[in-house]
């Protein structure tokens, strides 16, 4: 049974020597935390240090999520842990935890290219600690923009932006439809959502989705022009275009019909069933990065067939963009990606 701080010292040594087994052997770190021997905040700090040397370490990230979960479910920890040692109100503490996690993920992402573990942890934090709060999503979108522009082949980094946009769409459309669905609502009687604060914040953080998506397209154009020959950028463009046309088919009057694969409340494993991109025909040899499951794939196909074709103006602009790239680029890869993108656009409107 874990009892002393000497056991904690053993743990530290173990982390340095062998990260894979650090959390598995005796004394078991979870026991140390649940018994109050090891302060979970200190454990998070230890994990942060470990990640500077092992930025991918799955065990470290998995354990980190367990610790965070304990911290937000205050009942699981001895009461002196949550009150005495931390001494601040829960909501503020959660905000602090979120900020800290964003920083840890950012550092780890910089230490290893396309660090899937770091980015998926970041997503998990937004889902479970931040509960996909709109303001936080917007902050993340703007604060990761520069990083993305300096890591143009980091697929995970751009996938994160796609997740943010997707979540903003589902959060905003949800708020919007909730407000729309109460036509009898007068000034004084607010039936939904649950409390007035939520209504107020929904109004305040009423996100201008078309504007956000347009900005993202401009961002994509900017990067594709400045850094020719990066598949990640073209892949990102497909996602953004898809989200735009998706939005045009649903906003503001249609009913939200989110497939389970697209549910923002899903767990980490759901990330695999969120399509990395709209389904492409087998001829698209370029985009081999999609990682969607069969379930996600067929649901996306169904959704594509249900929604109206993408607006012709949007398509036209994209074709003009492709023409511009092809006429000025001298990079072989860039030309290849541009042509593949064109082919993809064509299949989208069929």
């Amino acid at each position, binding site marked *: 049974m874990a009892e002393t701080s000497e056991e904690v010292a053993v743990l530290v040594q173990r982390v340095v020597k062998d990260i894979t087994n650090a959390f598995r052997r005796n004394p078991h770190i979870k026991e140390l935390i649940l018994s109050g021997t090891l302060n979970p905040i200190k454990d998070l700090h230890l994990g942060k240090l470990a990640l500077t*040397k092992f930025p991918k370490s799955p065990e470290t990230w998995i354990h980190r999520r367990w610790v965070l979960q304990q911290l937000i479910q205050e009942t699981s920890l001895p009461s002196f842990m949550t009150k005495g040692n931390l001494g601040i109100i829960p909501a503020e503490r959660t905000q602090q935890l979120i900020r800290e996690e964003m920083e840890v993920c950012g550092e780890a992402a910089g230490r290893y290219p396309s660090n899937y573990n770091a980015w998926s942890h970041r997503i998990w934090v937004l889902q479970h600690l931040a509960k996909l709060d709109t303001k936080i999503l917007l902050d993340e979108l703007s604060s990761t923009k520069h990083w993305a522009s300096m890591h143009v082949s980091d697929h995970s980094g751009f996938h994160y932006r796609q997740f943010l946009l997707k979540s903003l769409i589902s959060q905003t459309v949800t708020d919007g439809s909730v407000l729309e669905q109460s036509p009898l609502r007068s000034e004084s009687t607010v039936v939904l959502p649950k409390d007035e604060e939520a209504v107020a914040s929904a109004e305040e953080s009423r996100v201008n989705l078309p504007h956000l998506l347009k900005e993202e397209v401009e961002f994509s154009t900017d990067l594709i022009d400045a850094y020719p020959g990066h598949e990640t950028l073209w892949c990102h463009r497909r996602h953004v275009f898809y989200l735009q046309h998706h939005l045009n088919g649903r906003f503001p009057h249609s009913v939200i019909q989110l497939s389970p694969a697209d549910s923002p409340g899903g767990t980490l494993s759901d990330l695999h069933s969120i399509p990395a991109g709209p389904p492409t025909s087998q001829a698209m040899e370029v985009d081999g990065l999609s990682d969607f499951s069969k379930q996600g794939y067929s649901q996306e196909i169904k959704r594509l067939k249900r929604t109206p074709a993408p607006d012709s103006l949007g398509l036209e602009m994209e074709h003009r963009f492709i023409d511009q790239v092809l006429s000025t680029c001298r990079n072989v890869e860039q030309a290849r990606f541009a042509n593949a993108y064109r082919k993809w656009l064509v299949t989208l409107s069929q």
Partner: protein
Amino acid sequence: MKLYSLSVLYKGESKTVLLKAAYDVSSFSFFQRSSVQEFMTFTSQLIVERSAKGSRASVKEQEYLCHVYVRNDSLAGVVIADREYPSRVAFTLLEKVLDEFSKQVDRIDWPIGSPDTIHYTGLDSHLSRYQNPREADPMTKVQAELDETKIILHNTMESLLERGEKLDDLVSKSEVLGIQSKAFYKTARKQNSCCAIM
């Protein structure tokens, strides 16, 4: 998107001489840094040695891309970057640096120079400024003069070598690499790790 080193060299008849270099090894762990620096010097020298006068080339080696410009007057520059850094900007940087260098340092000093004797201080600030390619080099159509088709692309360091020449031999014979670095190289090579050269 990262630049790791920027060097100015002289391609002499018999050997290539390092004149001045700037490094950014902050992303490497503390104990690796001096070895990494030595390997970048070694690599830069080797590349210039094996490149013809009046040529530009980019050499891929693992996750690095080494861009080299050897002028007709034998002054040469090498920038070692990652795969994301746009090569067009790298060559713009080299052009600029060599131009500036040739105006500040007398030609007479080139063949016999070394980092200690050469008086040129611009490299560190250029390296630092060019870490963000768009701040340092705003996209203008005018700058797209460089004919990218003339840039030779090598997929490995090996393709620069003569027939039968082995990189391992060149490493062990090198005067630029310390004992530590050579040992490091050997172990990495054996493990086939991702840091075989750097």
